[in-house]
């Protein structure tokens, strides 16, 4: 279970990217963090495993306070947090198999990793995972020979190999076309169920978020402005999150403000 309490990040230039964000993520739920560009979604996700150091607040994973760990302890803790990136961040010149196995780097000794001698169980799991994401026959291909969708699946396989307690996905579909994006999110959903771990996705494609998430966190200017399932999402919510409007008001096409508290919320389909 991931507990985030009052997480804040202020960059050296004075930019307050996060202003006290709190949430709890548990079970095998898919949580989508949505919001406009610059809302702080990426900062939030990166602060969880301290790729970006938070200024204040705590992040606790299964009773371990990640924010207070030393560099060395942090490495051990990061093994439990798998991460998938927008630009895949695979080692281009290495093969698919080497990239997937690199998920085990937190577990193997320096010498073994240097000689690329991973335990047989790890290799077996790597093959099994590759089969699951549909890339087993590409095991020996160099990553730069693959398409974007294939690369992201390798990235997901790498995260799975860590046997993590949670998977963080930082805009995993932004570089992909709509169909491939759907495939990737399907995959993440399956994994959440199969491995029984939660997945936190930072995503700006609203339609995908509404389709795949169990619940949403809406972020605007570093603050949480909405929490709830996709079924609670309507135009006023969209206004709150993306245009910083007051909660409960909606701007109709003529620019008039109307009070929607008595209106039935409608699902937006795009």
């Amino acid at each position, binding site marked *: 279970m991931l507990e985030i309490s009052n997480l804040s990040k202020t960059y050296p230039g004075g930019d307050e990217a996060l202003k006290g964000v709190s949430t709890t993520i548990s079970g095998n739920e898919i949580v989508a963090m949505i919001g406009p560009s610059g809302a702080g979604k990426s900062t939030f996700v990166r602060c969880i*495993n301290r*790729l970006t150091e938070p200024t204040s607040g705590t992040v606790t994973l299964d009773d371990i306070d990640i924010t207070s760990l030393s560099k060395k302890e942090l*490495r*051990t*803790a*990061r*093994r439990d*947090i*798998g*991460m998938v*990136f927008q*630009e895949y*961040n*695979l*080692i*281009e*010149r*290495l093969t698919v198999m080497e990239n997937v196995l*690199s*998920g*085990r*780097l*937190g*577990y193997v000794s*320096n010498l073994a*990793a*240097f000689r690329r001698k991973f335990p047989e169980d790890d290799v077996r799991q790597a093959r099994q995972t590759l089969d699951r994401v549909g890339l087993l026959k590409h095991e020996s291909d160099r990553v730069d020979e693959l398409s974007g969708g294939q690369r992201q699946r390798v*990235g997901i396989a*790498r995260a799975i190999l*860590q046997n993590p307690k949670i998977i963080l996905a930082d805009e995993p579909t932004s570089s992909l076309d709509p169909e491939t994006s759907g495939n990737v999110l399907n995959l993440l959903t399956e994994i959440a169920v199969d491995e029984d771990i939660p997945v936190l996705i930072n995503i700006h494609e609203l339609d995908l978020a509404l389709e795949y998430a169990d619940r949403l966190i809406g972020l605007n200017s570093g603050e949480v402005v909405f929490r709830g399932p996709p079924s609670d999402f309507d135009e006023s919510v969209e206004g709150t999150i993306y245009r910083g409007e007051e909660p409960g008001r909606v701007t109709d096409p003529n620019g008039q403000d109307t009070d929607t508290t008595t209106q039935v919320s409608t699902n937006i389909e795009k």
Partner: protein
Amino acid sequence: MGGGLSEINSEDWHLHNRRTRILRFAALLITAVLLLVSWQALGVRYDYAISAPVYLSDLLGRMFPPNAGYTGEILGPLLETVHIAILGTILAILMALPVAFISAHNTTPNKITYVLGKFIISFSRSVNVIIWALFFVIVFGPGALAGVVSVAVRSIGFTAKLLSEAIEEIDFGQVEAIDATGAGPFLILIYSIVPQVKPAFVSIATYRWDINVRAASVLGLVGAGGIGVELQTSVNSYAWGSVLTIMLAILGVVIISELVSAYFRKKVS
């Protein structure tokens, strides 16, 4: 609507705007002036300069045919030249790796190491390998040891500079991804940095190797080992056939070393 068309072409077309043309003209002028002044400063007599090609081809003529019998005598020094080049380059590469690392602004631990790295690079590169040889011959005595150290010290700066530039160009996202798996600094280096700089590394190493083979052939002129000594003595005794033999031998070594370099470069890209 009037006479619009006739006003459009009021200015002639030029390839560059006025400012660029003035700059280019100034640059050409400076170059021409510098050239003239330099030529005057050298104080070379024109008639002598004109006849230079004649004197050169005359000397070249006297070098033919090469003294084949001399080949046996120079095999030892030739081998020594190769030894110096190999050891010097390997030593330089080993020492250049950490220096390159601390001289790249994305991998250097702190500001002090960065400045130190840049200083080492600058210092090593500013002094020609022959001058290092002058120095090390005094320190280690004449012989190949001085040669090896000279080659190594000069090559560190060259290699580390290019290597640090390659390191600065890596995709840091890949480094972050490996960092996020919980890997320690050594494994982050091996898995995310090394694969990205490997092609550049091989290219830089072979480039420097090529230069060092040539440098090793002249170190003997200042007593730092290699075939330079034989070259000097042959010249001093006007044994032109032997001089040509030595030059052909050097050419042979260079050709072989370039083939080896090309092999490694091809393998890695």
